[in-house]
């Protein structure tokens, strides 16, 4: 559990460096531009370049390699399997054919190609999201989304959820540990019922917390609207940066997709 709250807590995003100092709107727009570039790619070059680039920038920004690895393990596995799946599923031209243990397996050229593109898109897209979250605290992302027109109610709930996830994660860890110490997970059946109890405790506590939070909000003037904070106006530099990223992305797209 503590690993989870580690992953969530924007520990690295709260450090001070070039990337974290950027306005979150710039970063969100840039990330969107990169993601558009990734999903529209039909060649693996751009997504893979973005993947490598994002991972390197995140690493340079002080995010430990172990952490990046942890975040990328799932997507990497998925990418590998997509590759295999497409190679087996699609196309007719055999690319490789081999027969371990006397069973013939054929990977097709077309399938391999689509597989590579798809895998690269998974990696590229994940890399972009990894970098965005590694240099931007969650609440800044929400604020940026708000200023880009996402509904206020959505942002209010998002902020509340994010804040209290940590409190409830701690609670979950403590309750589960207390159960484990009294052998609550010593068999599958016990584990199931113990887990059900944890879930019950978490929901009930959440409700109690909501009652107390509501009281605390009321004494500070809350009447149904949670102020979500304001952002300073974008500077010329911010605009230039955003434009630059979008234009660069467009150019890169044209460049890499030229011959396809």
């Amino acid at each position: 559990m503590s690993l989870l709250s580690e992953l969530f807590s924007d520990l690295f995003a709260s450090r001070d460096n070039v990337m974290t100092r950027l306005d979150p709107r710039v970063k969100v727009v840039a990330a969107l531009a990169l993601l558009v570039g990734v999903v529209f790619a039909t060649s693996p070059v751009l997504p893979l370049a973005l993947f490598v680039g994002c991972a390197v920038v995140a690493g340079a920004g002080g995010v430990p390699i172990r952490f990046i690895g942890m975040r990328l393990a799932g997507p990497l596995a998925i990418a590998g399997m997509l590759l295999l799946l497409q190679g087996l599923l699609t196309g007719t031209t055999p690319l490789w054919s081999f027969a371990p243990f006397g069973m013939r397996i054929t990977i097709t050229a077309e399938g391999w190609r689509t597989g590579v593109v798809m895998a690269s898109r998974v990696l590229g897209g994940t890399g972009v999201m990894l970098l965005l979250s590694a240099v931007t605290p969650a609440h800044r992302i929400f604020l940026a989304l708000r200023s880009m027109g996402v509904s206020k109610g959505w942002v209010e709930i998002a902020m509340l959820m994010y804040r209290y996830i940590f409190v409830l994660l701690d609670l979950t860890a403590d309750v589960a540990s207390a159960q484990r110490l009294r052998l609550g997970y010593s068999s599958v059946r016990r584990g199931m019922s113990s887990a059900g109890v944890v879930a019950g405790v978490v929901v009930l506590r959440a409700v109690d917390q909501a009652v107390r939070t509501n009281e605390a909000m009321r004494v500070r003037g809350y009447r149904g609207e949670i102020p979500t904070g304001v952002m300073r106006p974008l500077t010329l530099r911010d605009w230039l940066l955003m434009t630059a990223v979008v234009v660069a992305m467009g150019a890169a797209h044209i460049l890499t997709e030229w011959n396809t």
Partner: protein
Amino acid sequence: MNRNHTQVALIGLTLLALSQSAGAMHISEGILTPQWAGLWYLLVLPLVAWGLRDLRIKSAREPFFKPMVGLIGAAVFVISCMPVPVPSAGTCSHPCGTGMAAIFIGPALTVLVSSIALLLQALFLSHGGLTTLGANVMSMGVVGALVGYGTFRFGRRLGLAGWLAAFMAGVLSDWATYATTAFELASALHGDESFWRLFGGIGLSFLPTQLPLGIFEGVMAAGVYQFIAARRPSLLVCLGVERAAKGGAE
């Protein structure tokens, strides 16, 4: 091209591996083509707006509503992060929690809350993604919530005990979520293969984990329901889960 049995078996194995790997319960970033990604977004947006409308109306009437939704959202999110040992797969997976959430706060708000939860998972855990958010909200938020809510209400109408209705809601919402995910994956991945064959393949490969996981999800929902019915029956009434007269009817 004719595929031999080995090939088919290998495809099956790959699918199986895909369905087990971390994050496979959500469609990973970049898998969907722009067309599919856009389509799911279009389908899901009005439903999120529906949730927002619900939130606005109810919180104007009762300011307590916003912290309540936020906290229950956080709780469901945390529950959905609880690792569950799935013996048949030898790995850990986790429940969705949306069926359970829908019982307590209704399907509209569950869609809203799950859109937030999925964005957070995409950002911080690399589970799911931003471009696939629409598809994931559709399977987990929309389908999971509607099936869960519908099952629970229907079960209660049939006179099932609360915990049993909650159990059914958990099970069916989980399975419905995975069926939808399989549909979304198959439609995006099938290539030259027939959509139905791949859909079947993905569906089958989800089975060994999802059958027990769905049941686990049901146990969880029933557990939460029971727990609250035993400790705080008034809460079920207050949330509109049960009617006052039979408040806490077990």
